[in-house]
């Protein structure tokens, strides 16, 4: 890079005219870069919103909390709706909900009586007869119907037993301020824990999925590093009959698409009795992986051969040479394999989906997919919070080990 200091990537000399070109280039790159970042910002922004703000048009980027005075206290509220006509708040005397406050259209109250609804077994029904009601507050048109925000709030689908506080307030009584709803993350976590028929299911939740994922990740990366180092060593430094054929096969099978071997492979694991265990996800890694073997072999071939010969003359066994000479020199390459495998196992969806059957074994991929198919649709703020938590560890890992990653990716191209 050093010699490039005075010359742009395509060899042009730097001058006044080129400064303008370079400026334009950065503008274009920054514009494209922000397009690439936008989905992340959208994910973060949505994950910090209360449900009602995920459905405002046009969408807001900065989550805000709306405040109103409820029973004399300033509280964060959900703006349920703006009243399109005059309403009244009444206390119901008689009927199923006797003693409860209700919001009714002013025109619905006649002679101190009104046709009111009540909820029975999840269904709203009308009382057969109008019941006596007492008007306690008049809410003119354009007042806001607001109810207290609670972390459990998600569009009224799963309201808890205790009815949240609510009221009707004029627009000027409402205020709002930027406010990140971090509690969405806690709600998403608790939603992943589902009560099922089987008590074992109840134990399964995010921490459980995380442990399962880490378990598979660690076993796979250890296996990949150990086995691929051994195999790559033999490809790089040991002569044996059939080595070229074996290496050629290793390169060729990288072309085999997974669906082509999916069915018989499943049958192999089924006959071993491994379906429904973590074994299909990590055991194969202890027997090498074509791509890593290739990467490590290339790296090993670049090591100074004299060192190995010297060690051999000193009477070191191959294992000793591998451990004392090659491994210390190849640390960056081994770190790369470990990182790639960690990433691969963490991200994997199809493997766990094929082989894991019981919910208590779910990895984060499966847990998140189950979450989406159960709760998907409306609570996008929770889906985004869950997706954030699932992606963030990888993003952080990447930023911490950026150099190792980038070197590894650059090496990927070598085989072309």
């Amino acid at each position, binding site marked *: 890079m050093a010699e490039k200091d005075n010359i742009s990537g395509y060899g042009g000399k730097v001058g006044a005219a080129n400064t303008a070109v370079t400026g334009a280039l950065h503008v274009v790159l920054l514009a494209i870069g922000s397009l690439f970042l936008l989905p992340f910002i959208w994910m973060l922004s949505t994950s910090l919103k209360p449900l009602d703000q995920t459905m405002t*048009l046009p969408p807001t980027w900065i989550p805000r909390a709306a405040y109103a005075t409820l029973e004399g206290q300033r509280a964060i509220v959900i703006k349920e709706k703006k009243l399109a006509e005059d309403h009244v708040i009444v206390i119901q005397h008689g009927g199923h909900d006797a003693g409860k406050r209700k919001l009714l259209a002013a025109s619905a109250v006649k002679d101190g009586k009104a046709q009111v609804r009540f909820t029975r077994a999840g269904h709203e029904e009308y009382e057969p007869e109008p019941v006596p009601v007492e008007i306690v507050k008049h809410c003119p048109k354009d007042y806001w119907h607001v109810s207290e925000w609670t972390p459990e709030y998600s569009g009224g689908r799963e309201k808890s037993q205790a009815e949240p506080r609510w009221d009707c307030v004029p627009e000027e009584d409402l205020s709002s301020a930027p406010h990140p709803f971090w509690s969405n993350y806690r709600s998403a976590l608790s939603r992943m824990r589902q009560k099922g028929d089987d008590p074992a299911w109840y134990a399964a939740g995010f921490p459980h999925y995380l442990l399962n994922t880490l378990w598979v990740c660690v076993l796979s990366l250890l296996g990949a590093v150990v086995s691929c180092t051994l195999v790559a060593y033999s490809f790089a430094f040991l002569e044996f009959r059939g080595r070229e054929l074996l290496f050629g096969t290793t390169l060729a099978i990288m072309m085999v698409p997974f669906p082509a*071997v999916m069915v018989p492979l499943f049958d192999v694991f089924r006959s071993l009795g491994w379906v429904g265990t973590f074994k299909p996800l990590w055991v194969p890694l202890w027997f090498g992986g074509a791509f890593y073997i290739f990467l490590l072999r290339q790296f090993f071939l670049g090591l100074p051969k004299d060192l190995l010969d010297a060690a051999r003359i000193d009477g070191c066994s191959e294992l000793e040479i591998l451990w004392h000479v090659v491994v210390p020199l190849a640390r960056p390459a081994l770190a790369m394999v470990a990182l790639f495998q960690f990433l691969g196992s963490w991200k994997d969806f199809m493997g766990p989906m094929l082989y894991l059957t019981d919910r208590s074994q779910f990895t984060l991929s499966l847990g998140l997919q189950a979450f989406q198919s159960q709760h998907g649709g409306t609570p996008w703020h929770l889906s985004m919070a869950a997706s*954030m938590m699932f992606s963030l560890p990888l993003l952080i890992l990447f930023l911490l080990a950026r150099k190792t990653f980038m070197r590894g990716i650059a090496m990927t191209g070598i085989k072309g």
Partner: protein
Amino acid sequence: MATIGTRGKGWLFALPWIIGLGAFTLYPFCASIYYSFTDFSVLQEAKFVGLGNYSEIAGDEVFWKVLGNTVYYAALAIPSGLLVSLVLALLMNATRRGQALYSVIFYLPHLVPVVASAILWMWIFNAQYGLLNNALQPIYDLLNALLQRKGEALLAPPAWLSSATWALPSLVLMGLWSVGQAAFIYLATLQDVPLEMYEAADIDGATTWQKVRYVTLPMISHIIFFNVIMGIIGAFQVFSEPYIMTQGGPAQATYFLPYYIFDNAFVYLRMGYACAMSWILFLIILALTLLAFRLSRERVYYAGR
């Protein structure tokens, strides 16, 4: 160890891989040929049916439909992915500062696990409240204002994943978000292009475009070729995104061959039939790869070969 020669040691060190290669790739690969000639499910033993599966495939309307979808997807995803990643790499390579920052930004999406990115994009593609349609709304408002003046029918933004026309292109668009890996490989290769070549071109009075066209692209053609092959293999394997986001719908618009193979194997329990289709999939990929090799023979430049 003294009794085992270098030869034996070589085999010994390679042993894990010999077992792994055999048990987890070569055996399943060969077994799927055999199974493709049988009627086979988990519940019963394989029964030889000759070419039965293959002749059934020939008359299977769903197969032709999903094959068409897969080819359509590949035809959109491979060139667009190639173009975007190459342009990003060329732009990054033209700058002297900030390459590290840009490559991080472009690489980040590649790190998001498929389940998370699938859910994120379902939300972005949401017809009503999604990011994409809200960004497009002003354009449609403008268009509609013009159309209204002419008295023509108004337009609405696409419903993306819930539209049979747009669901497949939506998946392609989402795929473009994670081209960072390929872009970075290109960038690393671009930096290996010897500067003398550009200097020579400068002396000959070449324009920037001519330098890109006649120096840069030929010099990185082997990596372009490599990425095209990886693109072919990837595009013909796409499964998780449609499985999570659209379940193959709407109206089977995103039902791809790997998904149909999966359904046959694990939902309809017709594993022999699934194997026959997976062989067809493999042969298609093989044929395309060989074709790419053939086409590239005159066009790809390998330094030092």
